């Protein structure tokens, strides 16, 4: 099989095979460029065929790409559930901020910790998120950001001020939340659409 591949194929594979997302608004390691390259219809098809040989599939989201594996075995059920329970905690925290952190948002860990410190509700939320280290609120926030960056949902823009940016891949988590159905009698939540309790 002779496929014309972009020369960044190796970089793309290196990121996505680690289970990371490639977002259109990521800047580290030329991520936005990689996104554009995959997004080119011809490239997309070629890469899809190429990776298909080793049973990887490129999945397309809203402004992001990721790998899935064909015929994978679901081996780590517990861990997967645990990870997403943690995501729910984090998304809930982000959603409860005065200035909601969402796709494209930039924030400093210090500012986030400060807001949590000033607001009892947020403080409780943050303190209840199960994390390893972190006595102080700021360290907790740092750890959350580390975790989310490792999973390629955030990107650290500035080392010194610890500024993070929310990447497009975050939409994936929102899609997951959206897909969860809540079994409840009566649609009590319908009327208040758009208003967030804070």
């Amino acid at each position, binding site marked *: 099989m002779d496929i014309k591949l972009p020369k960044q194929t190796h970089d793309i594979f*290196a990121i*996505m*095979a*680690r*289970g*990371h*997302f490639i977002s259109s*608004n990521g800047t580290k390691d030329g991520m936005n460029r990689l996104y554009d390259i995959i997004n080119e219809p011809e490239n997309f098809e070629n890469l899809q065929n190429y990776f298909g040989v*080793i049973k*990887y599939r490129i*999945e397309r989201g809203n402004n992001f790409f*990721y*790998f*899935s*594996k064909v015929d*994978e075995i*679901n*081996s*780590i*059920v517990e*861990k*997967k*559930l645990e*990870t*997403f*329970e943690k995501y*729910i*905690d984090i*998304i*809930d925290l*982000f*959603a*409860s901020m005065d*200035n*909601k952190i*969402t*796709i*494209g*948002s*930039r*924030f400093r860990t210090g500012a986030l910790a400060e807001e949590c410190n000033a607001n009892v509700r947020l403080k409780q939320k943050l303190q209840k998120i199960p994390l390893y280290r972190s006595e102080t609120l700021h360290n907790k926030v740092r750890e959350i950001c580390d975790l989310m960056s490792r*999973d*390629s949902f955030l990107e650290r823009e500035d080392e010194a001020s610890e500024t993070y940016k929310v990447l497009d891949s975050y939409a*994936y988590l*929102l899609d*997951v*939340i*959206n*897909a*969860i*159905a*809540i*079994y*409840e009698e009566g649609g009590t*939540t319908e009327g*208040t659409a*758009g*208003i*967030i*309790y804070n």
Partner: protein
Amino acid sequence: MGMQVNAKEILSLLYYNRDVVDFLFGNRDSVTVNELLSREDITAEQYQKLVAHDVLYEHQQVVGLNDAVIAMFEDFMEIGEVTPSFINDYINELKRNIRYYQEGNEYRFLRSIKKYLKRIGGAISKEIIKLQKNVDDTYKNEGNYRIKLQKLEDYRLKRDTIIEFINRANEMIDETRKLFELTNDLELYGIVSSLRNILIENLDYLIEIQTDITDYINKIQFQLDVYKKAQHIKEIKDHGQLHYKTNFKEVVLGLNPLGFNGVKSPRTKISVEFLHTDDGYMLCGRIAEKYKITRLMARRLADKLPANFKDHRVEAFVKLDTQTLLEKFLKQNKNLFEFLMDFKFPKSLGNVTFEERVTLFVEISMEFDKQLDFKFTLNWYDFEDDKKQKRKIGYTLILPKKVKEKKAA
């Protein structure tokens, strides 16, 4: 009010200070006077001159370019805030000139009419390009979602205003068609028909922008809705009902990204041939560094021998000689400690101190414990320390293995 100046003076002033102007244009509303004056390309005198000519203004220590200068740059570069009012001004001017022309058929009014017709077309196109840029920019970069929503709504209003102006321009052309036909001016005819095209084209474009704005607003709204849901789910989770009241488990288990399924990235072993290359050598070095593996640490040339290396020789020699010492020890029947204390080391070693002998005792007892007979009784040895004080040291009784039990002398 600044000094009276002409265009040439402004141009040369701007040109002379072009670096400063460029710097201030790039950093609007954030440069302080001190910051500016600390730059090498402007002196306090030049600064005063610019202020005197109204090119710069100063407000609470912050320096800014004159709005007119900024507007000029933005106009040319088709960036900056959307200002549909320009179109309105042009339309009004056009109207006025048409009225004049209807009064007295003078050529000069016709010339103005042409000018404003052209300008309307240009302004509309320019504003729409800016609108598109601003909408995209707001959606992508505005961090505060409330302001983002408001800004997008504002752009929607501006879009409506532009549409209104386009319609007005269209109407006006229709109304004055007869008049234009009467002039029998080919150039005017060309301008009018091209303006018509521009208007139709831009109307289409605006519809597209409208779709974009709606799309963006919907996306934000979607995010807000999802956030609301996330908070709800979190509440359910806090009540421990996540697995019973929702299909959380099914949804999460159905997710396919590699990262969530514990799929490790495929590993390939590095070929031995590669490791022999220079790149392979570098790689080994890096890995050794990372995992602190001394075996892999690159072996480099030894440093130059220090001038006093002979002084260190004694120690090295004593260390190396334990094997011979052990053999000698096994052939006699004193216990190890006394044997070492009394042992006559070769003269070439010089004086072997008490401490060195103790070190040897420890070294031998640890290294050759298999060949030694540990008695697990404590004996005492008296000695004088550096300060000539009498001291005692306790040591384990160690005998050569083949020898039968025997008390120390």
